[in-house]
């Protein structure tokens, strides 16, 4: 499993666009928002938690269709399926590799980008912690979506339609954590919900992903 993780990370670095692409997209979306809604600091700081969370959702979505598509096309997926590596483990590792290349850089960079949206300094910590707990769920749900659409030509759009509704709970509780943090309220409940969604998703979806892959490999 570690071999698969290392290979995926190495491919992400060598093929280019692995670490940088999602992050650059995130940056551009966040920079565009003030141009769209105007420079009033008060409005910006009110919408900042939602914008930052939606932007990280879209950035995670950007590279999802590559998770299995490349391995499917060159036949590596069939070889992995017939190797001693359990397909459930491969699904988990693929999600982990996706998180390391997109979710982790976003989490680390988000507080700096919160500055651009006039996010209150009190909320930086909550933005960081909610993204750290929430973005793994985005990667795992996305991996499941990628497995469902792996054999399809132009499956990317269909995958977005399947995956985005499943992102709703994480988005609601993630943004709520940041908003409450900015206003100085307690954040325990939404934060626990974000962590709960992530834990649940990682408990169930590797199995669902493996089942979807087996059907698509037939």
């Amino acid at each position, binding site marked *: 499993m*570690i*071999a*698969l993780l290392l*290979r995926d990370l*190495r*491919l992400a670095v*060598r*093929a280019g666009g692995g670490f940088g692409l999602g992050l650059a997209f995130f940056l551009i979306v966040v920079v565009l928002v003030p141009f769209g809604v105007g420079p009033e600091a008060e409005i910006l700081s009110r919408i900042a938690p939602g914008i930052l969370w939606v932007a990280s959702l879209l950035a995670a979505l950007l590279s999802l269709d590559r998770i299995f598509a490349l*391995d499917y*096309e*060159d*036949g*590596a*997926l*069939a*070889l*992995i*399926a*017939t*190797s*001693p*590596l359990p397909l459930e483990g491969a699904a988990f590792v693929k999600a982990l590799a996706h998180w390391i290349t997109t979710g982790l850089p976003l989490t680390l960079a988000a507080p700096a980008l919160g500055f651009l949206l006039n996010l209150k300094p009190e909320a930086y910590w909550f933005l960081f912690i909610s993204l750290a707990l929430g973005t793994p769920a985005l990667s795992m749900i996305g991996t499941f979506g990628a497995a469902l659409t792996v054999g399809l030509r132009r499956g990317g759009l269909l995958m977005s339609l399947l995956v985005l509704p499943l992102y709703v709970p994480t988005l609601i509780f993630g943004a709520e954590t940041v908003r409450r943090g900015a206003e100085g309220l307690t954040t325990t409940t939404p934060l626990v919900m974000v962590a709960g969604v992530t834990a649940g998703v990682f408990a169930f979806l590797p199995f669902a992903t493996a089942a979807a892959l087996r059907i698509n*490999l*037939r």
Partner: protein
Amino acid sequence: MELVVTDLACARGGVPLIEGVNFRLKEGEALVLRGANGIGKTTLLRTLAGLQPPLAGMIECTEDQSAYASHADGIKAQLTVRENLEFWASVHGTSVEASVFEAFDLVDLRERFAGTLSAGQKRRLGLARLGVIGRKILFLDEPTVSLDRFSVKLFADFLKEQHLAMGGIAVIATHIDLGLEAPELDLEPFRAAYDAGGSSDEAFL
């Protein structure tokens, strides 16, 4: 170790292709599959490898000893030849021995990126994976596509000396003569009747 296939029927995309296939292979034995394009050689091999369930019949073989190789080699263009092989070795819990590079004439290509190899060199790399993973039962789908005559001989030698002679089993679909002393199985007589598998609408007519 044995590979026993009893009354096997396979389907592709819901269409039954072959039925009633029986054979038994012992250690050191190989079987060559013959038949026209579309007869179901690939489907049979994919079924044997466990990538799709059989329509009917039984496949008995030792657990976790089979490997599958098809036209698609699963080679990553951004990794070097050595890294590609090391990946498959560590997935299978083995290591890459230097003799594998010699057996498939890859010594000089070891540090080249796989994306820069020619079609035949890529094929050799794909086949070298079989020498790395240490599996005893091989299901090979047209292993010699895009290989020149010299490489075909290299591969045939590998099969004979390092696989079959060590007690391995191989089922090979191929259109050329590999020079193996192996029985041939022509799939033509096993072609499935059109409505086999109960997919007919007869009940509704």
